[in-house]
């Protein structure tokens, strides 16, 4: 299953699952990254990492190592 870090800027996806049960996974879920939620990649930081996402109506910064923990279902970009 593709993970969130493979999402390109401007693309949206539907969150399938957050993998694991450590501090990172729990924090991701607490921040609203749960099954069925839509997430959009807004762009990466100038040095390439972390990246900015739009989820639950707010902006969230995630490192690639954290985004990799989120499994997604890609949805075609809204026209």
């Amino acid at each position, binding site marked *: 299953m593709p993970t969130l870090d493979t999402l390109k800027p401007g693309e949206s996806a539907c969150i399938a699952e957050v993998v694991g*049960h450590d*501090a990172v*996974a729990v924090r991701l879920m*607490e921040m609203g990254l749960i099954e069925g939620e839509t997430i959009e990649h807004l762009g990466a930081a100038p040095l390439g990492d972390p990246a900015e996402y739009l989820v*639950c109506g*707010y902006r969230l*910064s995630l490192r690639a190592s954290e985004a990799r923990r989120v499994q997604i279902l890609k949805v075609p970009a809204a026209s």
Partner: protein
Amino acid sequence: MSSSAPTAMPLTVALIGNPNTGKSTLFNALSGSAALTGNYPGVTVEKKIGKMRCGDRVVQLVDLPGTYSLSPRTLDEMVTVDLLLGRIADIGRPDVVVCIVDASNLERNLYLVSQVLDLGLPAVLVLNMSDVAKSRGIVIDAGELSRRLGLAVVMTAAHRHDGIDSVREAILAAAAAGPPPRPEIFPPVFREECGRLAAQLAEWGRPATPDYLLGRLLLDVGGYLETHAVNGKARELQHYLETARGRLGAAGCKPPAVEARVRYAWARALLQGVAARPTVRPATFSDKVDRQLTHRFTGLVLFAALMLVMFQAISTWAEPLMEACKAVQASAGGVVAGLMPAGPLRSLLIDGVIGGVGSVLVFLPQIVILFLFIALLEDCGYMARAAFLMDKLMTHVGLSGKSFVPLMSSFACAIPGIMATRVIENRRDRMTTILVAPLMSCSARQPVYVLMILAFIPATSYLGGWVGLQALVLFGMTCLGAVVAVPIAWVLKKTLFRGETPPFVMELPSYKWPSPRLVFTRVYHQAKSFVVRAGTLIFATSIVVWAASYFPGDHAAADRLQTQITASELDPFADATERERLIVRCNQLQSELLEHSLLGRFGHLIEPAVRPLGWDWKIGVGVIASFPAREVIVGTLGTIYSLGGVESADDAGLQDAVRSATWPDGHKVFSLPVALSIMVFFALCAQCASTLMIIRRETNSWRWPLFTFSYMTALAYAAAFATYRLAIWLS
């Protein structure tokens, strides 16, 4: 409930909310700016308590640290839960919890609210930034939300003081009404497991555990409670929890994922028909600004420009204010000198007390300016972007982007830099940042470098006069600490502060205009807490070092000379050459007194230790005397070389004196290798009592200042030795 008597019991109200919800603004609006700050025992969490009145009730308002959830993974996070459960002795169980949420981001904020409701405390829900939500097209039916939750819901715009009185009324009403109904959001199978766990704990002879903590034990895999809550039965508990979680997993409620699922499901159901989020998020002003500020090119350029301005402000703009501080100190000393005869009391007042107060106040300009910047950047929402931009760079040493601004500020002065680490919520990252911050080359090192460079580095220049050797050495010394800090931070993160990489899951809040009131209050509190809580220790250190340099010794002769000099200065007909003679004699006496004082004796004592660095006892005394602050060495060397109090490092007399100083056998003490070894030592040593005291204050323990002093002194010694040897070998 009976009607409240005029002398009603004081209420305890806890204020909780996500970061960036305007919690501090609400706290200030409710309690004014007179808050007491401190630390909870044994942790680095700041305790902030304000007082306010609600009708005839006196209210103790406790500001809890901003948090996204109440699932403690560390001792610091446990403090908040303990407080809400009434397990912090000197505060007691809160009578009311005020939950502040960002009205424009309700769904995620309600996650924390649902946890708070599980605690079974009377509560008030404050929807703050309702004006922002409105402008984004979010419509909230507060009345319906209040009805569904069974508690008061108040709409506020705290930065404009809108709705503050309603919050006060709602607090009183909530205290009278008692706890709202607890939403049963977990499935029955989970509640059964909680009951079973309670029975098991009772069987092990544990006192009754609050329901909320039973839930936490089951939900927080590897959380704080699981590892710390039950002494003696740790293994049994671990085993029990694993089986219980297995049972929950089989029933489709696998911890920890079940919690986020059910709480968000609850929040969505609650908001159905209550709050309408527009389907297409309108591109706001904030979005447009953000596109530029996080842009690959403009983002970095603007960030660099901003950092440059900030750095310039702390190092240059603070200068006149610091000079003014010193001038006030000098004139206060002059006044005392005019009023009192020379003697120990006068020396104590001028060099001990006034000097000590001055050494505290001299930091205030930098602290105020830096915190003005930080408060502005944080309040307008840029601080999170700064961390976002710099994160990648900082991950190379195992830190996060949040360490960048504190470390950069430390180039001006480590004290505001260390105070600025409070923005780093992860304890291990914060500690590492605090411990390496004093390595950054602060402005107090400059006088040492300037003295040594002007006296010993030839003024050669290269590339047709564009690059001077003196400037190169100064640049090298300034970079040295930062370069050394990289491996040190890396080692600290691998040893003392190792652990799983903390999540850098960070909200990027919307931009807004900073609130002058909030910015002012924050700066005022930082300055006050520095003066009150670190200032006293810095002052005490100054007195101790003054005493060590004054006693023992008979100052009568020097005092008599001093009186004669003063008299001669006032007498227009006095013989100038005679006065010169008196001054020279007096300076000589002062030098001898210093040599025979405790400090001087200690300098002699450590001479064998500093010999390998190429130093004589005088440099040793200078280094010890500069424990309160590095730049003191310049003045101390002035006294030792019988020049009286030398004011500045480019004093030609002092440069000549160090150049011509000799060992008893006649060869020169100072040479290029010695000068380099002194500079390297001062680049890396922890000769700054104020920094150590601020570390003690920020870490709430004596262990870390001691550790910092030890590791930096060892590092400085080793590096100075290596430099000395290498320079001798090369020359």
